[in-house]
């Protein structure tokens, strides 16, 4: 019975394999015009070696972007097995800075790579068999997903959402899986070619005066360098003077810290100056309500922590306020083993509330900040009170905090 089944499956696989590899009738030769003609692309710079070298660089860079992007996604939507530490305080600043900088530096590399294989788009016959058709479809998926990632990322850091008819974060996330999956498949399919191209020396066939392989790789490298230097100042502050294309300046904005969402945009302008403002802290033992004077009377602490945005910029601030763990104690929970659900005065919005996991509640650097740089928080920075915790994306540093629900973790 089992043997019959195995034989049947093997037969099915054989038949499927031969079906996939059955040659399809070639299209009429009269259709072979324009770029489809033999020798339509004249550049002798193209070679499997050039493509493999660019492809290897792209594979490394895409992996870096995928891993750092996945980290950012998991911090914001943590699966049960995932825990992100609260130290080192600058870890997320680095991972997300690298994510954006690598993605931008990828632009010339991807461009050169796609140029190097462009004639293959016009290979003749367009499809030899079903297996060939599937392979070509997977390449289309790879190219489309790679372009999707770079272009949507560039639009996002420039905050231009109109050309993207979808929610950026979700589209960028699923397209990342498509890109990395198609990339793995592509490497698997092309592995023999890549291995030969990278191990066997290939002479540069470019004639005198033309751009050589080394010249093209060098130019792509210089382009990546120029892009990095002119944008990375948004998070590497010493580069700011040369970063003429940085979407942010680490020191621009009220109280020398940039703003993503203003109080006006959040619709909280009136609510935050309401004299009846109270920070409500319901916990397992009791429910505490604190006015501004009550908060100011609690022990104040000062920390130097960055706001690290998912868009790749970051800025260090000096924050003063009440430790979250002190508030947790007031609400009657163990500060070493509690979780806090922090809500904003905002009525709606994707980021109006966030869960602070135990590692960050425990950390004495995690504050409900009342002051920035010694002054009361600017309304756009979350007046009257905001969350600031080490090693967390900016979107999870809730502003205009109105309520903190404390839950015991165990």
């Amino acid at each position: 019975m089992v043997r019959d089944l195995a034989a049947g499956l093997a037969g099915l696989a054989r038949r499927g394999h031969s079906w996939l590899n059955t040659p399809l009738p070639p299209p009429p030769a009269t259709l072979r015009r324009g770029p489809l003609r033999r020798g339509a692309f004249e550049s002798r710079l193209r070679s499997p070696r050039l493509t493999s070298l660019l492809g290897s660089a792209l594979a490394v860079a895409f992996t870096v972007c995928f891993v750092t992007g996945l980290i950012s996604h998991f911090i914001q939507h943590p699966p049960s097995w995932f825990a992100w530490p609260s130290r080192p305080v600058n870890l997320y600043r680095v991972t997300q800075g690298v994510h954006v900088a690598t993605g931008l530096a990828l632009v010339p590399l991807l461009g050169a790579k796609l140029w190097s294989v462009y004639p293959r788009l016009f290979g003749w016959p367009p499809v030899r068999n079903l297996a060939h058709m599937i392979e070509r479809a997977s390449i289309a998926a790879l190219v489309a997903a790679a372009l999707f990632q770079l272009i949507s990322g560039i639009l996002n850091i420039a905050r231009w959402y109109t050309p993207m008819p979808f929610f950026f974060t979700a589209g960028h996330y699923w397209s990342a899986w498509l890109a990395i999956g198609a990339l793995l498949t592509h490497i698997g399919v092309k592995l023999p070619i890549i291995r030969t191209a990278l191990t066997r020396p290939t002479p540069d066939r470019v004639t005198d005066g033309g751009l050589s392989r080394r010249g093209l790789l060098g130019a792509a490298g210089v382009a990546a360098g120029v892009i990095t230097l002119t944008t990375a100042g948004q998070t590497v502050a010493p580069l700011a003077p040369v970063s003429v294309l940085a979407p942010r300046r680490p020191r621009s904005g009220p109280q020398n810290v940039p703003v993503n969402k203003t109080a006006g945009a959040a619709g909280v302008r009136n609510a935050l100056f309401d004299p009846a403002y109270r920070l409500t802290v319901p916990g397992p033992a009791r429910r505490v309500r604190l006015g501004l004077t009550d908060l100011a009377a609690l022990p104040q602490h000062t920390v130097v922590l960055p706001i690290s945005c998912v868009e790749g910029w970051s800025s260090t601030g000096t924050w003063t306020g009440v430790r979250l763990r002190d508030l947790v104690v007031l609400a009657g929970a163990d500060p070493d083993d509690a979780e806090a659900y922090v809500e904003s005065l905002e009525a709606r919005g994707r980021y109006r509330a966030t869960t602070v996991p135990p590692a960050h509640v425990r950390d004495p650097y995690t504050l409900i900040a009342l002051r920035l740089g010694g002054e009361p928080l600017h309304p756009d920075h979350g007046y009257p009170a905001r969350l600031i915790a080490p090693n967390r994306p900016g979107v999870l540093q809730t502003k205009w905090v109105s309520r903190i629900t404390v839950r015991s973790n165990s």
Partner: protein
Amino acid sequence: MRTVRRALIGAGVLGMTYAVIGALTDPDVKGGALLFLIGVLIAHDAILLPLVIGVGALIGRFVPLRRHALIRAALLITLAVTIVAVPLVLGRGRAADNPSLLPLNYGRGLLEIYGLIWVSTALAAAVRARKERPARAPAPP
């Protein structure tokens, strides 16, 4: 190698399947993402790359052979920087109540980078011309 290839292809197919199922079940994605996916592919393969290859052919025709490499390299760098800069220069993401967003004059910044690229290119061309002079007679213009 056969096992490695099969493992890579298998893992890749799993990744792509996860992407498709994930996107289909995520209410935040909608059909717009598919539209954008196809749009960027067409914009690149049917518009941008043919233009780039066309400009390359024009250089082949009108620029002296000895300067092809330098001009092509400079154009490559110019194009890559432009792609990153265009959304910033257009500045559609600006918000009236938030001056910390896109705080710079990106048009001027881009022109500065262009200047740097092309001045360096001209310098490199001059240095090469100097090196070539003793070897052969000055080329006719």
